């Protein structure tokens, strides 16, 4: 009984202290600004265990310590949960002032539909940002969010150079060069190209976003198809789907890839079980084995059979996501000023460099930014690769959404599993789109 009383008393004292400390902190904040602090309701992206989430919490923490007149009242979610909550909050009228958002068919659609996209051009400081690196996001050149970095490259081949050379090969220039590696790789018990084929989006974002440009010779073929200028049943798109079929039949991609998820794919590559991995540039930060990371060369898909000159060397690229104000946030001058003050810190050179080191971005959008010379090898390789990309092609799900996009993704998985033909998948997508 005495022990219980003592525990209860201790708990009461600790909780009271914490409560009073919180009250004191709030009072300090209030008095510093001479009034109630400005609350910026924010929708953040990440979770407590990844670099993105931890970085967000750290930045918010020290920003609020140094700016007691501002409260960044945030809700942080990741992946599917984030997308679901954005839709739910907007539909219920609980619009955040500031949010992690994009401007395409996936990341921008709910904000556009809710009429919450707001043009940041007037507030972007010329002295801070290299605005030539920020692409237009609206019909009149509007910039609806501040991208974390330059274009997000989605169709990247990560090559384990040491492993490839060990088998007696060198960096492939054509598809035939990769195909020639199949017997040696199989004999060594290795995959040639690994992909997280169980994730439908990986086929769309990491494969088809380059292939449509290669077979059509037009890097903007998908956006034109969505606009009605092309059809998904056109021979060039069917030919792009046939490349997937061909790779499976040639053993370049194994049929079992359609049962491999995102984490397993990166883990397989990182553990030296595959010569190549196809993923987006962001996967570089996930290659944890230093021997593999330091020996990785990043490259575009090599020349594919039937490739047309206009699409040669293309890499799928989408506008990078980032934080931005919503129309609701921008409507209040105090909130707008507080949010921009926070974003100045969030996008500062120091934080951008950290983001670069974490592997979260390709290259910064800051004016006069000098890339540090001591970057980890894989990150330096990513910057080199990004600078070498001469032609960027449409990322499929940046333009195609909903049921047609889902059908295309699942259709490519069916092709790999031998359940559908490229022509059937193309017809199904076209049927749903029109």
């Amino acid at each position: 009984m005495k022990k219980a009383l003592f525990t209860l008393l201790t708990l009461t004292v600790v909780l009271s202290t914490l409560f009073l400390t919180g009250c004191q902190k709030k009072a300090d904040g209030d008095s510093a600004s001479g009034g109630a602090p400005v609350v910026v309701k924010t929708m953040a992206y990440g979770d407590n265990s990844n670099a993105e989430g931890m970085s967000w919490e750290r930045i918010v923490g020290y920003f609020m310590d140094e700016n007691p007149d501002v409260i960044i009242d945030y809700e942080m979610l990741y992946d599917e949960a984030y997308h679901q909550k954005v839709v739910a909050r907007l539909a219920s009228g609980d619009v955040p002032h500031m949010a992690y958002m994009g401007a395409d068919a996936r990341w921008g659609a709910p904000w556009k539909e809710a009429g919450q996209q707001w043009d940041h051009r007037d507030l972007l400081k010329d002295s801070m940002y290299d605005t030539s690196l920020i692409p237009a996001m609206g019909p009149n050149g509007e910039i609806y969010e501040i991208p974390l970095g330059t274009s997000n490259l989605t169709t990247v081949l990560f090559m384990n150079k040491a492993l490839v050379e060990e088998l007696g090969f060198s960096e492939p220039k054509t598809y035939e060069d990769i195909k020639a590696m199949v017997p040696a790789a199989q004999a060594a018990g290795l995959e040639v190209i690994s992909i997280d084929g169980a994730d439908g989006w990986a086929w769309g974002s990491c494969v088809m976003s380059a292939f449509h440009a290669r077979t059509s010779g037009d890097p903007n073929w998908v956006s034109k198809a969505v606009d009605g200028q092309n059809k998904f049943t056109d021979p060039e798109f069917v030919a792009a789907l046939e490349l997937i079929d061909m790779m499976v039949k040639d053993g370049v991609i194994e049929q079992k890839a359609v049962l491999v998820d995102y984490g397993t794919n990166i883990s397989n590559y990182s553990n030296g079980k595959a010569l190549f991995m196809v993923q987006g540039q962001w996967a570089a930060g996930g290659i944890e084995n230093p021997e593999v990371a330091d020996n990785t060369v990043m490259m575009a898909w090599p020349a594919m059979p039937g490739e047309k000159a206009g699409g040669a060397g293309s890499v799928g690229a989408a506008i990078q996501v980032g934080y931005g104000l919503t129309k609701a946030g921008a409507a209040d001058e105090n909130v707008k000023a507080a949010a921009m003050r926070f974003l100045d810190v969030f996008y500062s050179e120091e934080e951008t460099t950290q983001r670069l080191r974490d592997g979260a971005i390709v290259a910064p959008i800051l004016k006069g930014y000098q890339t540090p010379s001591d970057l980890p090898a894989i990150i330096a390789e990513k910057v080199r690769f990004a600078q070498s990309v001469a032609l960027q092609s449409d990322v499929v799900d940046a333009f195609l959404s909903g049921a047609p996009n889902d059908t295309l993704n699942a259709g490519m998985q069916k092709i790999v599993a031998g359940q559908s033909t490229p022509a059937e998948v193309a017809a199904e997508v076209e049927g749903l789109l029109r």
Partner: protein
Amino acid sequence: MNKRDQKELMVFLGMIGPGLLVYLFIVAYPILYSAWLSFTDFNPNSGGDWSFVGLLQYKTMVEDPNFWHAFKNNMIVVAVSAFGQIPIGFVLAYILFRNRVKWGHFFQAMVFLPQFLSTIVIGILWKRMFAADGPASRIIQIFSGDPSRQFDLMLKADTVMYPIGFALIWMYTGFYMLIFLANLQKIDKSMVEAAKIDGATEPQIFTRIIMPLMTGAILVSAILAIAGSLKGFDLIFAMTTQGLQRNNAMVLPIFMYQTAFQDYRNPMRFAYGSAISNAIVIISMVMILFSNWVGSKFNAGEDY
């Protein structure tokens, strides 16, 4: 009404009022809103004008092959629950009740263990079991002698519900076992002893004494299983990856979620999603009424 009655009425209202208000706001309002929304073309995200469209959303739903695919999968889940989890749970409970195994408490804890785990964790666990070169594939490879063979039931629309059904049984059987065990322990053991003295065999005790007394518990379990199966979302969502697997394993709640929250091309997606969710409620009610009817035929609720 005299003063005393008025006072009692005030006390009554004062006691149920707060709870009733919370209920109306959190439960009743969304149900009514969803019902209203399903008869309109309103998009709460974009706001603006709306029109009454009658049964358009329901017509679209019954003409949508995805709805029937999801409905079929849901019926499989209901069947797995009603004819898999409940009978297995009952048999396990009976074995424990009749002390037919040593270390009964250990087995009871093991079977109930999945109930302590997060559904998402269980979903990921089973996803890994059925992944490329995962445990299920390894077993096939060992028995077939072919190291390239894979467990591919998750990739086919007509087989995907087998592994999912297996996971559902693994997860929920312990729950039903506990319900049955609690009810079995309420049975007066002297009835069983008397039957044994009269020479009744174990099957006779089971069919003539235990089963009639357990019909009420079976009915309650069936209602829980049906309602749970029709609104079940998390386990199947976590077990499948986005794309072919999830499309194959789509059940009505996932179909509703994908329609309302992801199909940005459809401006009426919230109204359509509401129609799907209302259909889930209606199907649940019909099946629960059917269960009650079946239960009444078997004298459910017989006293101990």
